[in-house]
């Protein structure tokens, strides 16, 4: 009995120690703003978590753009858990904030809490990720269009190989199987590239959106296919992994095998500026300013569009070199 007690308490101590570390790390974001003047608009925002550099930039953009727009922001971090997020939204409803915005952790299970918000007459805006609830339960959804990102890359490939007489061999590194960005980016790219019969996708494998897998998969594909002209990776990280594999195979990335990717995170932009990547379609996390505009529109009685696409751009090697010093992530 004593043994068990000691064991349990040891486990509990570890758990609290660790969770408090996590809390300390996120304390900056738990409740950053408190009640300002009554004339100020209050926005309650529930973030997914801080799982990647992309997400971090997303959080930063929202936190920075709120005071700039004169909006009082209440921010909470759900740490990847839907129950945390539902609790946060409920607390915003109780606090009677003017607008609630959140990046849903998962797609399903939001009906109840969205209906509560509707009953309290608080408009809800979704950011970055969609839900499967009835569209009447939220005002607007702002986020990237993954199909369009795939098309941007596909268009670059079409333009650059329109005079190609010999077949162009393309390798595609897909994201995690079943993930929305992987499905949509593949669709956008494949459909466009199909229009030119010279462009052939000779291999398409999942690299799980990670550098390690991207490298491992590319290394195997390089051996099975002696002639590869172009690589399309669904995100920068897989592209960077594959770039290393290409270098180790004695080829020059960007020249012998061209690399096009999506995301435009810092390391990817660096590779593009260094001439090792050839083109990146941006998937921007910086939707803070647009979100604040929507909040203001709602408050002034206007109805924003149901689906708003994040302002995104594309980068060539030269544009990357110019943009790199000012990138926020």
């Amino acid at each position, binding site marked *: 009995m004593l043994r068990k007690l000691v064991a349990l308490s040891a486990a509990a101590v570890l758990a609290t120690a660790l969770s408090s570390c996590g809390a300390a*790390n996120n304390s900056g974001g738990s409740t950053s703003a408190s009640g300002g003047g009554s004339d100020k608009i209050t926005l309650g925002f529930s973030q997914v978590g801080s799982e990647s550099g992309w997400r971090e930039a997303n959080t930063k953009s929202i936190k920075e753009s709120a005071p700039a727009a004169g909006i009082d922001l209440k921010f909470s971090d759900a740490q990847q858990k839907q129950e945390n997020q539902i609790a946060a939204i409920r607390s915003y409803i109780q606090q009677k904030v003017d607008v609630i915005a959140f990046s849903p952790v998962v797609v399903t299970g939001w009906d109840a809490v969205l209906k509560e918000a509707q009953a309290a007459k608080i408009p809800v805006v979704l950011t970055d990720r969609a839900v499967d609830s009835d569209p009447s339960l939220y005002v607007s959804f702002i986020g990237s269009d993954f199909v369009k990102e795939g098309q941007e890359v596909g268009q670059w490939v079409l333009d650059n190989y329109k005079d190609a007489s010999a077949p162009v061999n393309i390798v595609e590194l897909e994201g995690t199987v079943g993930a929305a960005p992987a499905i949509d980016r593949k669709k956008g790219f494949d459909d466009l590239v199909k229009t030119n019969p010279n462009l052939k996708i000779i291999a398409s494998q999942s690299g799980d959106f990670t550098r390690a897998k991207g490298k491992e998969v590319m290394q195997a594909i390089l051996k099975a296919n002696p002639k590869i002209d172009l690589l399309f990776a669904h995100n920068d990280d897989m592209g960077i992994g594959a770039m*290393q594999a290409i270098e180790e195979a004695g080829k020059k990335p960007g020249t012998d095998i061209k690399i096009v990717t999506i995301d435009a995170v810092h390391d990817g932009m660096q590779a593009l500026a260094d001439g090792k990547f050839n083109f990146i379609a941006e998937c921007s996390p910086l939707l803070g300013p647009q979100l604040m505009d929507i909040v203001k529109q709602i408050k002034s009685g206007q109805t924003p569009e149901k689906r708003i696409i994040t302002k995104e751009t594309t980068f060539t090697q030269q544009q990357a070199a110019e943009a790199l010093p000012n990138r926020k992530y």
Partner: protein
Amino acid sequence: MIKHRLFWPVVALVALLLGNRIVTPGFFSVEVKSGHLYGSLIDILLFGAPLILIALGMVTVIATGGIDLSVGATVAISGALACYIISDQANQGSVGGVLFAVALALVLSLALGLWNGMLVAWLGIQPIIATLILMVAGRGVAQLITSGKIITVNSPPYKLIGGGYWLGLPFAIIVVVVVAAITAVLVRRTALGLLIEAVGGNAEASRLVGIRSRSLIIMAYMFCALCSGIAGLMISSNIAAADGNNAGLWMELDAILAVVIGGTSLIGGRFSLAGTIIGALIIQTISTTIYTAGVPSYRVLVFKAVVVALVCLIQSPAFRAKVFRRRHKRPPPQPKAEVPASDSGDLEVSA
């Protein structure tokens, strides 16, 4: 020869490799490219190296009757700490700085192993629960070290560990050979292996005959964590970056599978180092097969499941006996299809 317990795992590995040779004609070709060996077989060894190491650690823990679910988290923590320290240095290329980072990461790994071992041996917590704590919390620790970002390092000496070459051979493979050799000598040429098997067979009985089962169990968990720590360095070094979210994700399952495919029982007791290495190679060969042969990504999991099921079935004496009997109509089914190999026989294989 068929009776040897490594026979069927080796058959499975050879069959996989031959299957690849048929699908991809150049699969066995190994050439020298920019001063080092280059080919699919080298890839299997290079990317399999971390898994072999972790499986070696896992098999010693399993031999004591335990299991370590936290190896994937240890991989992430070790790589994260090493990359964090290196990225903080003014001169990332300095050998001294890299050695310092590597040493610190490995010391931390040992400490994590000590933690697991103490929970299991001193507090008597079930191994699956005790190591589950670190499995869940450890990834959080790794993210804390990297602040949730991917830390990229640009350090040639660090790159050597997992992605570099030495005398034309991938350095990671050399590390694995050295660790495996040391382990084999320690376990099979001294009484250590016997003691571990005794603890795994019956911890209480072995304590009563005078074996210090507690310290042996703690040592096994520390060895497992050290192996995972080295594997973590390899994985992060190979991509020159630490990814706290994804490094070593689900690797504990691959390692346990490697141990099982290699013919070691999860109940504890007798274990096979050589079988475990072959098991890890089989798993890596399956992955490489998928990428090289171009199995569509949405079919990958099914493909893996089928191959693993086949490999396990082929090793099952009961399954073989049935198939064998039906095909050849052999009248007397043998009560025991496989006689356990003697200890001395295993000794020669693993050393």
